[in-house]
Each structure stands twice: as C-alpha cells, then as structure tokens.
C-alpha cells in the first residue's frame, strides 16, 4: 500500500521549472531513495511532500492526506530532517530534544534516541558548539522524536565521518524494521544501494528511472567491465566482434572491455584459443555509480 503518492508534480521558481512532472509512490515500510545530481529537484520534491511548498500542478498525498490542506495532521505522522536547517544557536541538545518531543502527542523517549545516536554525552552542549556531524545526528533525532509513520531524510549522512555514516545507516534500517517508511534524499550511491528498497533517479526535474538498486545497475549500458594485459597482442577485429561488447579500449597494452556476462565467457575462450595468458585479469560489476552516470548522461544528451 502506498503511504506517499506523488502525482505529476510541477513546481517552478521564477518561471524556471525545478520539478517537472514527477510521479512516484512509496510503499508502507520501505526505504525509498531519491537520487539525483545537485539541482535536479530532489529537495523541492520532498518539500512538496512535507507541505513546505505548494506544487504548481499535480497532487501529493501522505497517508491519503494533502500535506498543504491537512498540514496539521500530516505533521503528526511525518518526521523531517531538512537540508541546512539549524536550531537556535544557544539551545542545548537536551533542551532541543525535550522541546521537539513536547510538540507531538505520542513522542518517542528522546533519551533513548539520543543514546542511539551517540548524543547522550552532549546533552548540555549548545547547538552552535556542536560539530557538523553532531548537528546532523541531532537533526536526525528530532526527525524521529515524534514517533512518525514516515520519515523524510534529506542528505542524511552529509558531513558524517565513515564510522558515523555506517552507524546511521544501521539506525535507519532499524527504524524501517520498526515499521516506519523512510524517504531518503541522497547523492551517495553507496548509501542508496545499501539502504534503499527502491530508488527514483531524478534529473532536471524529471524521474528518469525508478527501480531497485540492482535493477538500475543491470539497466546500465555496460554491466560488466573486463580488463587485462595480454601476453601477446590481440587482433582488434576479433575483440570488436566479442558478443555483448559495448566498447573496447586498448591503453598501453592493457585492454578494457565493457560488456556483459556473455562477453566474459567469450574473452576467456578467445584467450584459450590463442594460448594467450591474461595478466592482472579483473572482472568488475558495474555499480550504481555507473548506472547513475549512464542515466543522467542519457538525459543530458537528449
């Protein structure tokens, strides 16, 4: 069942479209990612879901409610972590958590949450004195303190060190496992492939792909990259005729072939036929990075 429905949303700023007909639906209990380059319209899209912006056209529903018209009811079931939003400079961590938990009818235990996010040693620290990572963690805690059904996290782990990032990912998985739906805006591929059940790739205000992370990867033009240094030179025409090969490059004696699983087998038999040894043979799967670049580049060329 879809808990967030975005249908044909358009939003322009001063005549320039930021979001140009975006549609997607987020199912209850999933982690849904919105991926895209900077300025693609990701933040504007989630701001429409949060009810912070009114779409020029199209509809948004959160649990069947309009985030603008039913703003009050939506805020009770939606927690948000905004990009670049701050708190009062002199408010302490404990005060902020206590304040925000007072806003909700059925708040979570903010002390447990703070402990989970490693903020319990910082209760008396003022917001302005926190490090970037600590501010980020506080902002995640505040998004979760109201016991929301849906949580929107915009640039979740920006500013976190690798350790804190991994801890945060674990927290988000736990949040999902407790039945909360997560809408995640990110530009980290690793984050999207690790966390998301499904991903919408947004570029220039449009959804260019919507799939599982592995579905997106297999869609990428070149799913497999084979590279090796042959013991003897190989015939170029033979290489070009390899099944599934998208591109073949020779670089200082090293050959790099973009292709599919089929290409891998063909390369191996080709080498065997010519009794050539392949030094430093590497076969790598394309990553979400490659898929992302393919998808957003295709759009740019169009």
């Amino acid at each position, binding site marked *: 069942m879809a808990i967030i429905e975005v249908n044909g949303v358009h939003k322009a700023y001063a005549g320039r479209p930021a979001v140009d007909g975006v549609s997607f639906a987020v199912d209850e209990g999933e982690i849904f990612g919105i991926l895209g380059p900077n300025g693609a319209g990701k933040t504007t899209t989630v701001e429409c879901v*949060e*009810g*912070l912006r009114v779409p020029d056209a199209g509809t948004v529903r959160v649990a069947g409610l309009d985030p603008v018209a039913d703003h*009050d009811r939506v*805020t*009770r079931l*939606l*927690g*948000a972590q*905004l990009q*670049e*939003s*701050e*708190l*009062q*400079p*002199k*408010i*302490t961590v*404990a*005060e902020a*958590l*206590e*304040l*925000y*938990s*007072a*806003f*909700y*009818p059925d*708040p979570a235990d903010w*002390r447990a949450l703070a402990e989970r996010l490693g903020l319990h040693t910082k*209760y*008396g*620290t*003022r917001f302005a004195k926190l490090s970037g990572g600590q501010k980020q963690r506080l902002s995640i805690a*505040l998004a979760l303190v*109201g016991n929301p059904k849906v949580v929107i996290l915009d640039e979740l782990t920006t500013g976190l060190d690798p350790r804190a990032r991994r801890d945060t990912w674990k927290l988000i998985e736990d949040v999902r496992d407790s039945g909360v739906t997560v809408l995640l805006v990110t530009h980290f591929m690793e984050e999207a492939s690790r966390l998301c059940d499904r991903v919408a790739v947004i570029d220039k205000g449009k959804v260019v792909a919507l799939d599982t992370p592995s579905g997106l990867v297999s869609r990428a033009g070149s799913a497999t990259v084979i590279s090796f240094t042959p013991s003897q030179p190989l015939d170029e025409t033979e290489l070009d005729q390899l099944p599934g090969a998208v591109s073949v490059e020779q670089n200082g004696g090293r050959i790099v072939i973009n292709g599919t699983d089929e290409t891998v087998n063909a390369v191996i038999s080709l080498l065997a036929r010519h009794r050539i040894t392949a030094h430093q043979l590497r076969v790598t799967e394309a990553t979400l990075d490659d898929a992302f670049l393919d998808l957003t580049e295709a759009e740019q060329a169009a």
Partner: protein
Amino acid sequence: MTTATPARTTATPTPWAAVLRAETRLFLREPGGLFWILVFPSALLTILGLIPSFRDPDDALGGRRVIDLYVPVSVLLAMIMAGIGAMPPILTGYRERGILRRMSTTPVPPSALLTAQIALHGAAALGSAALVMTVGRAVFGVRLPGQPFGYVLALLLATASVLGLGALLCALSRTTKASSAIGTVANLVMMFTAGVWIPVQTMPETLRRIVEVTPFGAASQALDRAASGGWPGWVQLGVMALWAAVVTGLATRLFRWE
C-alpha cells in the same frame, strides 16, 4: 547554566508552554540584550540624575525638574531597546537559519516561536519600565504617576506599537545584517522622537507637533500627562493605537517565513 544531566521527567508540558519555556531560557542567555533592555535605561536615568542642575525645579518646565521628564523618556528607551534593538535580529536570525522552516514540519506552527519572542520582549520592556520608575522614585524622588490607569494604558499602547514596529522591521529585512542596520537607524529616530536628546515637552512648538504624530512622540506626551496626574489625551492614545494597528497589520501581511 547548563548541566550535563537532562531535566527530570515532569508532566509533559503543552507545546506552547514548552516553546515559551525554551525561548525564555534562550532569552536569558543573551547578556547583551538583557543589558540594553533592563539595565541601560535605568543606568542612563541614574547618570542624568547625577547632574545637579537636572535635580533643580525649572520654571521653564512648569516648576518640574529635568529628571522628572527623563523618567518617561527612559521608560520609552526600554521599549525601543527591546522592540527595535533586540528583537528584530533574533527573529530574522530564526528565519535565516531555517529554524522557522524546521518548525513548520512539526505540529506546532512557527508563529509560536515568534509569539514567544514578542511576548518576552514585551515583558522585558515593561519590567524595565517598572525598574526605571522604581529608581526614579527611590533615588531621585520622582513622584509615581498621578494617573496610574492612564499611564498603564499609554505604556501598553507604546509597547504594542514598538513590538509591531520591530516585527515590521523583520518583515522588511531579508537578512540579520539588514535588520541590524535598519534597526540602528530606526533606533536613533525612535530615540529622538521619544525625547532622549531633548524631551518632547521642551521641543520647539513646530517640532513638537511633528514628533507628536510619531508613536513615541505621542507616547512621551501621554506618559508625561499621566505622570502629572492628568488623563493622557485621547489624540495621543489614538495616534499610538493607530500606529500599533497599522504596523502590526503590515508586519503580518509582509512577513516571510523563509
């Protein structure tokens, strides 16, 4: 100040009470603001009172002393310091830092934050006014207002117009820097019309007539009248009420949440 342990679990406060409590704590953490609102007006009165000639009755003032005139002036100074000097940078900062936006995603509207700040600055201004009158009475023997109801009414109207002006200032300035800059200029103009440099009562006729249509010129005349035991003129009260209504209305219309 701050402690390492969180506050004990008490009955969950209502959201608005929680906002007011948090903002009160934050308000008390601004020593600069507290000094200018609560200490400076009384300090200025004290310094002026130390000038011997200001404590002598003056025939040109109808037998009153300069220090008598400076009590209402210092009261108005407290209002200006709170409403124009201290409040606008805080409110614009809340907008600029995305604090209001963040609150828009919670069940409590960001107007709760603004309301709390306006109420706190109003309360501080009135507290400072009380302090000024106490110092005037205790140290320089300035009589308490002869017409207390009229005085309080004039005070409340002056507070309403200064807070409205402060809110309008935030609505008009996009950044904290702009609001501080506009605030500084507005501060000087307000201080002049309130009679900080020359009490309104001693201004030349034409100047006084002009100043009387400004909120603080009107307030100064109204407070002066009530201090001497008369009912403040309805014209002056009306001028203040009109200013309060117009600036508050404009501020509400023009305010941007982000």
